[in-house]
């Protein structure tokens, strides 16, 4: 299909929308589906079919609208009203109000800081378009970046824009994306591969899933552009099998993109050919590590191998391989469309653009947010997130999942970027943010993450395999009030050793939750050890808590 034909589809879609602007959008991402948005959608369809708007108000399923804790969410057009906690019984009233005053009882204000403070780049289409229709994506400037890259830019120019944007990998380590692309592009080889890492396994993280469920074409477009830039003709998306909806939508997206000639040979009527295949992971956290992921795609056991060589030098089947995270690829189309400088104008000195976070835990607005890099933790948690519920006191926020750490109150005004988070003893990670209030015991939190690392360790190297098990036992001993100060010393020794000697990032970062809680909440450890008491009242420490303490 030629660029002109694609434009034709987009403008027909836009014209159709203009002719009939009425529309009901129901969130059909995993969060809202779990609170029954499926039934809401059916009820709305019935209500439309049985009323005066029959055939005049399509009911579409869209991706995540962000405020997952108030799902199911429904929005109406042209009025742009957002409804929260919708039940199937509300359908009649909502349909009746499409062209009149809104149903106040259900209305969710778009003026909430939750919406106002966000900046949509990765999530610009999320909750707006039907993720199962490529026409919707095309009408939202979809594939314009690809066409532009293929017809107006040389591969090196594409990489130049990505470098200029300052984009850093969103999979955790924050490696400069442009640099990675140029390394792969420069590697001497006949064959190169592109891999999208959609293995998202951090507890509490659902950014990548949401992007895939809400706007899958964007990830494909990012990958195809990457393929063009680095000279690859084949891409893989490694997605965990626990994400059935994301997989279904990806399959649909790939089929539709192939149908329009955006995948396969002669893409956009040029010489360029690129194909994408899905590979399903069985849900091992370690398979998100790039070398383990590659081993898994190759059909082997998903265990990491020592780097170097890095995948950019010798990756999949030994060929130079570009591996990026879902969100990283999702940033590419707008960067190409608007230029690297546009992207670099957002964010901080060394962390550019926006970042998607999954807000969970003790926070009023649980859900998915996208904010500019450099926003402070206080703004994210207390403004966007609406603060800690039930008048409890904020204690810490955990970022970076099992590889990250807990950041206490004194850092709330710190700007959120790669470097500040690292300085505070945590990491950006993939974007999970778990908010904890004073009812959380920090030793218990550290134990939880250590248990996760212990059971997700691949078992290949000794420090991680046996070290995490010993550390977990020590943490359990502390929680149970059976530990002595020697145990704490041993725990710290093990943290240091496992961090410095493990083979891959899993082991190297497994001690982080312990180290960061020891740094800021050492008194809680000591209370468990010396007083046999859990200050938060979470752990059964052998001794009864006095009432009210």
């Amino acid at each position: 299909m030629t660029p002109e034909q694609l434009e034709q589809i987009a403008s027909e879609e836009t014209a159709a929308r203009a002719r009939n602007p009425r529309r009901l959008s129901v969130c059909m991402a995993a969060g809202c589906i779990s609170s029954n948005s499926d039934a809401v959608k059916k009820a709305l369809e019935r209500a439309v079919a049985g009323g005066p708007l029959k055939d005049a108000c399509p009911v579409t399923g869209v991706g995540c609208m962000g405020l997952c804790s108030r799902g199911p969410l429904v929005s109406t057009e042209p009025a742009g009203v957002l409804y929260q906690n919708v039940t199937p019984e509300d359908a009649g009233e909502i349909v009746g109000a499409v062209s009149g005053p809104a149903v106040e009882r259900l209305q969710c204000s778009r003026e909430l800081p939750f919406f106002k403070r966000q900046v949509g780049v990765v999530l610009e289409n999320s909750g707006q378009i039907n993720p199962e229709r490529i026409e919707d994506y095309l009408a939202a400037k979809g594939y314009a970046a690809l066409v532009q890259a293929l017809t107006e830019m040389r591969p090196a120019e594409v990489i130049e824009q990505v470098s200029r944007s300052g984009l850093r990998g969103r999979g955790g380590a924050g490696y400069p994306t442009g640099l990675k692309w140029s390394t792969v592009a420069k590697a001497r080889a006949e064959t190169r591969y592109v891999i999208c890492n959609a293995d998202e396994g951090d507890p509490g993280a659902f950014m990548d899933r949401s992007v895939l469920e809400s706007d899958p074409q964007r990830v494909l477009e990012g990958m195809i552009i990457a393929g063009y830039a680095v000279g690859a003709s084949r891409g893989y998306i490694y997605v965990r099998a626990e994400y059935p909806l994301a997989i279904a939508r990806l399959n649909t997206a790939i089929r539709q993109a192939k149908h329009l000639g955006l995948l396969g040979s002669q893409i956009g009527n040029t010489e360029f050919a690129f194909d994408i295949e899905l590979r399903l992971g069985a849900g091992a956290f370690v398979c998100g590590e790039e070398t383990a992921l590659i081993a898994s795609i190759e059909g082997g056991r998903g265990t990491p191998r020592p780097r170097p060589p890095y995948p950019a030098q010798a990756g999949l089947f030994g060929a130079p391989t570009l591996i990026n995270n879902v969100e990283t690829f999702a940033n590419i189309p707008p960067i190409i469309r608007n230029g690297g400088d546009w992207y670099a104008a957002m964010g901080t000195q060394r962390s550019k653009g926006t970042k998607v976070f999954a807000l969970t835990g003790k926070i009023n607005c649980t859900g998915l947010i996208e904010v500019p890099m450099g926003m402070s933790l206080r703004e994210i948690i207390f403004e966007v997130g609406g603060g800690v519920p039930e008048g409890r006191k904020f204690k810490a926020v955990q970022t970076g999942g099992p590889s990250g750490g807990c950041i206490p109150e004194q850092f709330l005004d710190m700007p959120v970027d790669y470097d500040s988070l690292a300085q505070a003893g945590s990491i950006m990670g993939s974007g999970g943010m778990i908010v904890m209030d004073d009812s959380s015991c920090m030793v218990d939190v550290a134990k939880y993450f250590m248990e996760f690392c212990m059971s997700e360790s691949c078992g290949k190297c000794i420090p991680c395999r046996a070290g995490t098990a010993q550390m977990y036992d020590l943490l359990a001993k502390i929680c149970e009030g059976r530990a002595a100060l020697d145990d704490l010393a041993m725990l710290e020794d093990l943290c240091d050793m496992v961090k410095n000697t493990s083979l891959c990032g899993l082991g190297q970062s497994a001690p982080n939750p312990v180290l960061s809680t020891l740094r800021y909440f050492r008194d809680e450890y000591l209370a468990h050890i010396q007083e046999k008491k859990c200050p938060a009242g979470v752990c059964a420490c052998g001794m009864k808590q006095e009432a009210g303490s």
Partner: protein
Amino acid sequence: MTPAVSDVKTLQIDGIDVSAQADQTILDAAREKGLSIPTLCHLDGLGDVGACRLCLVEIKGTSKLLPACVTRVEEGMEVTTQSERLLKYRRMTLELLFAERNHVCSVCVANGHCDLQVLGQAHGLTHVQFPYRYPKLPMDASHDRFVVDHNRCVLCTRCVRVCDEVEGAHTWDVMSRGIGSMVITDLHQPWGESDTCTSCGKCVQVCPTGALFEKGKARLVAKSRDFLPYLAMMREGK
């Protein structure tokens, strides 16, 4: 003709000048010079996995410790193989291994011929600071000639590699993950019922401990591994 770029590198290991081919590892170069770096998962003639972490060394200019068995030499590298920090980590690694399963030398068939025991002695291990985990692990004596005792296994995967890379049978592999990992034959069938096992016994010879041993021998004789580098050499036609 342009002269070939030299593929010989010079570097320093523990302050000693060493030259090595570009494709050699730090471990190769050190051993050629008679410098010893402890290893467990490495075995001459097998592909390296960098898993045991005993061979970690310090390299000037990077804060990361790197495994000597898989890290290639580079021009001007300054390598330290013995430091207080490295020795501490090596001891802890060995202690973690001893505490992980049931390594009771006095009642082990490999007593006196065990790589783990030798490493423990070399590092002056008189006791283990970590609590022993005492897992209850099975023994499989279903094979006519060989036995696997998981209580003694250190998961070095030498058996897995020799069976795959040298014998070409790939009978052995690893099951589960983390602390629950275990070497298995075929798809976790009893060894005696394995369809792929050729009973060649290479796995028994390469096993560093008493995890794999031959039946009917109350005390193991020293294992023979000389065949491996020879086979590897012949294969590569060097």
